[in-house]
């Protein structure tokens, strides 16, 4: 394998005792790349550290990082040293291509919100309407970055209201610094905040396991493996059935669902409401949150007769 063909492993290290909750980095044949201190801390210093360490071998960088104290007897460089040492030992495993969050809460009523394009005011109205129906959790599958909206108030609201956000494609591209067009340029802090949202959410509804994701972009992520958790569900929805639009292949889908981990699969890229029950699996497509003068959201319930899904509509 040549120098340029070396396998790149991506790592996410949960820190202890420092401001940024995570450090992201890549290792390619013992060489450090793309160090990012994510979610807090001194952004200027963190960027400088990342730049100084770019392309350096682990042997070279470890001697500089160890034993620096800032707070709680540790520091960002010290935590990076711990992360790199654990990666070398193998106790820190390479991260998955996508970020998966498992919600431990087992509920019986979930509110589902589709694409909002980062519209905080609409989100606020929807939350009030959904809470009125006594749901246990609210999931939002879409983009937090919109054309004219500032992202920070949206982030603040989802954090305050404990909304489970599943990252949309635009958000992911913005988090990677790829934003363009009419979208506002994000600060590094905002991009880092986006990196902390999951791209796949697993949840419990009664005795059923559910998974939620945005759409196709996940399959094209670097290092996406067809054998990661829930990869089969995403391959079937996006690759095989074209977001459940190609009904001619539902026979093949039926043959594959017995291998699924999830019994509820929710996605939102199609931007139109839909519910299919195929063998023991419920597939749910979320429509846009705003349709003309109405707000729409999905109510997913678990009752004695199994899963029930309804689209709820409110006039604006």
């Amino acid at each position, binding site marked *: 394998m040549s120098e340029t063909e070396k396998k790149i492993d991506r790592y996410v290290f949960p820190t202890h005792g420092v401001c940024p909750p995570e450090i992201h980095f890549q290792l390619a044949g013992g060489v450090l790349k793309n160090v990012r201190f994510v979610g807090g801390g001194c952004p200027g210093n963190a960027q400088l550290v990342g730049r100084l360490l770019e392309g350096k071998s682990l042997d070279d960088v470890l001697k500089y990082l160890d034993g620096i104290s800032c707070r709680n007897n540790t520091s960002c460089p010290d935590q990076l040293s711990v992360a790199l040492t654990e990666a070398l030992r193998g106790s820190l495993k390479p991260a998955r291509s996508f970020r998966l969050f498992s919600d431990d809460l087992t509920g019986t009523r979930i509110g589902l919100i589709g694409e909002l394009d980062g519209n905080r005011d609409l989100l606020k109205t929807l939350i009030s309407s959904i809470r009125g129906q006594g749901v246990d959790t609210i999931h939002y599958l879409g983009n937090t970055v919109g054309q004219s909206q500032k992202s920070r108030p949206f982030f603040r609201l989802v954090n305050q209201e404990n909304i489970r956000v599943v990252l949309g494609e635009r958000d992911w591209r913005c988090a990677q610094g790829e934003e363009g067009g009419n979208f506002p340029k994000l600060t590094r802090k905002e991009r880092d905040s986006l990196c902390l949202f999951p791209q796949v959410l697993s949840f419990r509804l009664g005795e059923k396991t559910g998974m939620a994701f945005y759409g196709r972009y996940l*399959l094209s992520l670097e290092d996406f493996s*067809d*054998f990661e958790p829930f*990869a*089969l569900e995403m*391959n079937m929805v996006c*690759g*095989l059935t074209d977001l459940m639009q190609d009904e*001619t*292949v539902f*026979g*093949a889908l039926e*043959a*594959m669902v017995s*291998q699924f981990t999830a019994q509820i699969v929710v996605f939102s890229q199609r931007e139109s409401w839909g519910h299919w029950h195929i063998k023991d699996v419920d597939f749910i497509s979320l429509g846009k949150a705003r349709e003309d003068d109405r707000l729409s959201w999905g109510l997913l319930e678990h009752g004695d007769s199994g899963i029930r899904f309804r689209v709820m509509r409110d006039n604006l």
Partner: protein
Amino acid sequence: MAESVKVLPEEIQALIDIHEWDMRTRPGIQRFKELKARSLPSVALDEDLIYESIIPGQEELIHEIRRRHQIKNT
């Protein structure tokens, strides 16, 4: 389905190249779509989708392989 192909007699195996595609993977799905298949399991011979949902009997499969082989070699 793949097993029914793999257990064909040696003289038939000598006439064909066998490719098995895993439907859990993106290349498997891509091949499935290229063949315009709809169900599983599916068998294609020379890019033609011949069997869908059903596992053919060995005799039927051998007959179809021989028939195609003959056409190609006459």
